[in-house]
């Protein structure tokens, strides 16, 4: 049984991080030059960490899957980044940001980690402004804020609808500065396929595939940081970029790292609905749209039916026949309820037959009132690029007719288990950003992913990693010639040879799509025992089929896109099962995890704090063997535990 020590510092919640920093061990400047660090991923967490560690004087090797670090998927985040600056003077504090985040996550995140996230949020905004990130400003030249779901204050900083892009380019600038200086070495078009753990149990390197040459390469370091993002693509259709995958976290899991809360997946309420089976991905429309857009479906079933048949349009429905169901059900928060709540409410209406669009699987997001109130110019300034994107994809003008939206897989709160230092249970293996599990519990609030990525990358990892590395200065250079590297590399090569040798009849995508359907139907927005048990069986059968009948054409050398996809889908076929197992074992509803058996009479999620107020950290025990469950009990020392209520303030 793995030992779970969360290493939460002593002291009051507000003092923990300060106390930690006062007592942590440091590495002297002369020694930093001798220490090597591998960073996997160049999104907000990885990019910011690599740049900061390089600035400090460590020797950093950074890896990205795309052709440039600037293309990591953090770039696609639209709406904004939270911070407790309280610039609008509306009553925000660090504690309130913390509390909204922990409550939004349905009390399934670790108190001390989440508090620290809120605590460093203000430093992030300062840092980004200093880097020249062009945040939106008021006429006086000061920073502007807007509101996001799950909060009653305006604390979200933004750069039009491209906040993620601008923050990532800030981190990319910092990284480029360090690459130029020589402190960071950049490896593009590389995919991590395995983790190397030495006999003493420490992580000392990675095995990657060079996506251009097909070569399998070894890299060693004193510590490894994984910041490779989430695993939402297990569902095939999601808002994630095409290459985003679970490989780095999954292979680390198979080398002994614990996987925490894999079933906590975020379904984002405002995405462009699915329109055909050839579709490759779903497009997110920023949550910021819910600031001004009102969500509704027809009140009358016959109106909904007519819309589905194309006999009627949304604009034909008079005001009194519209059901603004979020405003009706949740008067205190209205259209700004958290994502999980908004998603489930949309599903509930559509399942009851009130959905719109050809498929009946969509609801309206309407800007008519906002345009009347504020004028088209204001709406265009706020959301212009999003409206344009919608029109290009759907071929309808959202200034004139309401948008149609539906929930889609967006973010994974679960990830590798880490302690307060963001170190996994494997010494020397750190995990940051979406790849870890620690800050968002069972549901992430909007504008908090950017906050966490940059908090981990700029302000946490550079401190906590030193505490580990201080012990490592005597170790000396780590070579890749050891038998551990030899062994892991061989296993990777064998995996590739096996895939190439199957020469079956099913394409990788067709199997991935089938996996996606199993996941969406049974491990998606609402789950139940029977469906989850069925999903586990079906995934196992599909995995068997994959390993006997998948078709991977071409050669293993050089660019082989099908081989790349096959390696990722092989991981997803295992990860999907773990997600289902976790969802099955968690006999409660919490945040994005909604078990049909556990709901109130009004259909709201019903938590079970008595039995499930813990982090489920799964331990790998071998292929096709049941994983072992470890529990980290969640202790809330300075937090009042409430039932989430967005109906009344």
């Amino acid at each position, binding site marked *: 049984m793995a030992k779970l020590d969360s290493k939460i510092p002593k002291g009051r919640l507000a003092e923990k991080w300060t106390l930690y920093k006062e007592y942590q061990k440091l590495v002297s400047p002369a020694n930093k030059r001798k220490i090597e660090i591998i960073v996997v991923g160049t999104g907000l967490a990885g990019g910011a960490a690599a*740049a*900061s560690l390089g*600035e400090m004087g460590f020797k950093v090797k950074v890896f990205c899957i*795309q*052709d*440039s670090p*600037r*293309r990591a*998927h953090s*770039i*696609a985040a639209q709406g904004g980044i939270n911070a407790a600056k309280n*610039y609008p003077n509306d009553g925000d504090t660090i504690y309130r940001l913390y509390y909204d985040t922990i409550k939004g996550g349905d009390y399934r995140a670790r108190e001390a980690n989440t508090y620290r996230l809120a605590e460093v949020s203000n430093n992030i*905004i*300062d*840092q980004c*402004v*200093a*880097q*020249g990130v*062009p*945040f*939106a*400003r*008021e006429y*006086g*030249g000061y*920073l502007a804020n807007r509101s996001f779901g799950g909060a009653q204050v305006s604390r979200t900083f933004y*750069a*039009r609808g*491209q906040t*993620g892009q601008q923050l990532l380019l800030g981190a*990319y*600038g*910092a990284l*480029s*500065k360090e*690459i130029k200086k020589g402190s960071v070495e950049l490896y593009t078009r590389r995919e991590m396929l395995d983790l190397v753990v030495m006999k003493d149990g420490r992580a000392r390197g990675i095995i990657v595939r060079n996506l*251009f040459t097909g070569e399998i390469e070894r890299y060693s370091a004193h510590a490894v940081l994984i910041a490779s993002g989430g695993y939402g693509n297990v569902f095939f259709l999601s*808002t994630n*970029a*095409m*290459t985003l995958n679970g490989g780095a976290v999954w292979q680390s899991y198979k080398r002994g790292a614990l996987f925490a809360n894999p079933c906590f997946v975020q379904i984002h309420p405002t995405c462009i609905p699915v329109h*055909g089976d*050839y*579709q*490759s*991905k779903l*497009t*997110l429309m920023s949550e910021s749209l819910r600031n001004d857009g009102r969500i509704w479906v027809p009140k009358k079933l016959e109106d909904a039916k007519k819309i589905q048949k194309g006999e009627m349009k949304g604009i034909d429905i008079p005001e009194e026949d519209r059901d603004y169901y979020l405003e009706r059900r949740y008067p205190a928060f209205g259209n700004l309820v958290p994502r999980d709540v908004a998603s489930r409410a949309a599903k509930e209406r559509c399942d009851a037959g009130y959905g719109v669009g050809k498929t009946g699987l969509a609801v309206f997001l309407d800007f008519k009132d906002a345009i009347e109130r504020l004028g088209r110019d204001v709406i265009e300034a706020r959301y212009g690029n999003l409206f344009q*994107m919608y029109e*290009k*994809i759907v*071929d309808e003008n959202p200034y004139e007719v309401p948008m149609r939206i539906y929930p889609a897989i967006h973010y994974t709160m679960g990830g590798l288990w880490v302690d307060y230092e963001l170190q996994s249970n494997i010494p020397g293996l750190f995990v940051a950003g979406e790849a870890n599990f620690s800050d968002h519990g069972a549901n992430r609030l909007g504008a908090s992913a950017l906050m966490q990525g940059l908090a981990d990358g700029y302000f946490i990892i*550079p401190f906590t990693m030193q505490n580990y590395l201080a012990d490592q200065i005597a170790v000396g250079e780590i070579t890749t010639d050891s038998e551990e590297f030899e062994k892991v590399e061989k296993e990777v090569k064998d995996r590739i040879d096996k895939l190439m040798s199957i020469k079956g009849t099913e*394409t990788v995508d067709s199997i991935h799509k089938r996996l996606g359907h199993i996941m969406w139907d049974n491990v998606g927005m609402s789950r139940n025992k029977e469906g989850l048990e069925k999903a586990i069986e079906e995934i196992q059968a599909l995995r068997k089929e994959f390993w006997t009948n998948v*078709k991977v*054409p071409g050669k293993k050398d*050089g*660019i082989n*896109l099908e081989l790349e996809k096959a390696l990722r889908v092989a991981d997803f076929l295992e990860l999907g099962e773990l997600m289902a197992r976790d969802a099955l074992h968690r006999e409660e509803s919490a945040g994005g995890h909604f078990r049909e058996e556990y709901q109130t009479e009004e259909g709201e999620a019903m938590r079970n704090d008595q039995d499930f107020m813990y982090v489920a950290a799964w331990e790998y025990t071998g292929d096709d063997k049941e994983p072992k469950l470890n529990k980290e009990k969640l202790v809330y020392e300075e937090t009042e535990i409430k039932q989430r209520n967005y109906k009344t303030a």
Partner: protein
Amino acid sequence: MDLKLKIWRQASRDAKGKFVDYEVHNISSDASFLEMMDLLNEDLVEKGEEPVAFDHDCREGICGMCSLFINGRPHGPDSAITTCQLHMRKFKDGETIVIEPWRAKPFPVIKDLIVDRSAFDELIQAGGYISVSTGGVPDANAIPVSREKAELAMDAAACIGCGACVAACKNASAMLFVSAKVSQFALLPQGKIEAKERVQKMVAKMDDLGFGNCTNTYACEAECPKEISVTNIARMNREFFVAKIS
């Protein structure tokens, strides 16, 4: 829709490339261009042929990875979008579509439709940032920025680094790309301190890497998926001139 495709196939950087004809059938006009390419590839894989290699990732027009030259235009016939946002409704049933990689000396073809754009990273590394380390910076509101300047900086910062400007330019000039970064920082008080050095280093690097000169045809602006304006080039020229004489 049924379509004929003429696609550039090239096995590797040094291999000789050529156009190969393909056909796709029953494509929905609601499908995106890359989804049409996916269907072609799925078909090729099923037949045991090697799929067409092309770059793409976010598929929502922001990562800048996709880079196809379609019927003679970077990112195809629609305006202000990337290839991944281009939809088949922009084409006619039965049409022949010619698909090529970016063609520019500093962007060598790696395979089929994939080119190497690392020259853009090198340009940024030459000075496309503000030299600030993590920590030790003033409160964000200690540096007020006029809304007008912030908006102009954002207009420039919207660049996704896809390289369409270079591909569109008969001289393969990177002026729009470089000027967008130079402008963003020249407009903001935070960027002013290194402004002179930045513009000189980035322009010198651009010449080093083999990008051509700007002859004011504005093809770059016309094809930029983010509608970056050539006024940024004018601003950069001004910055460059001031840096040289002071």
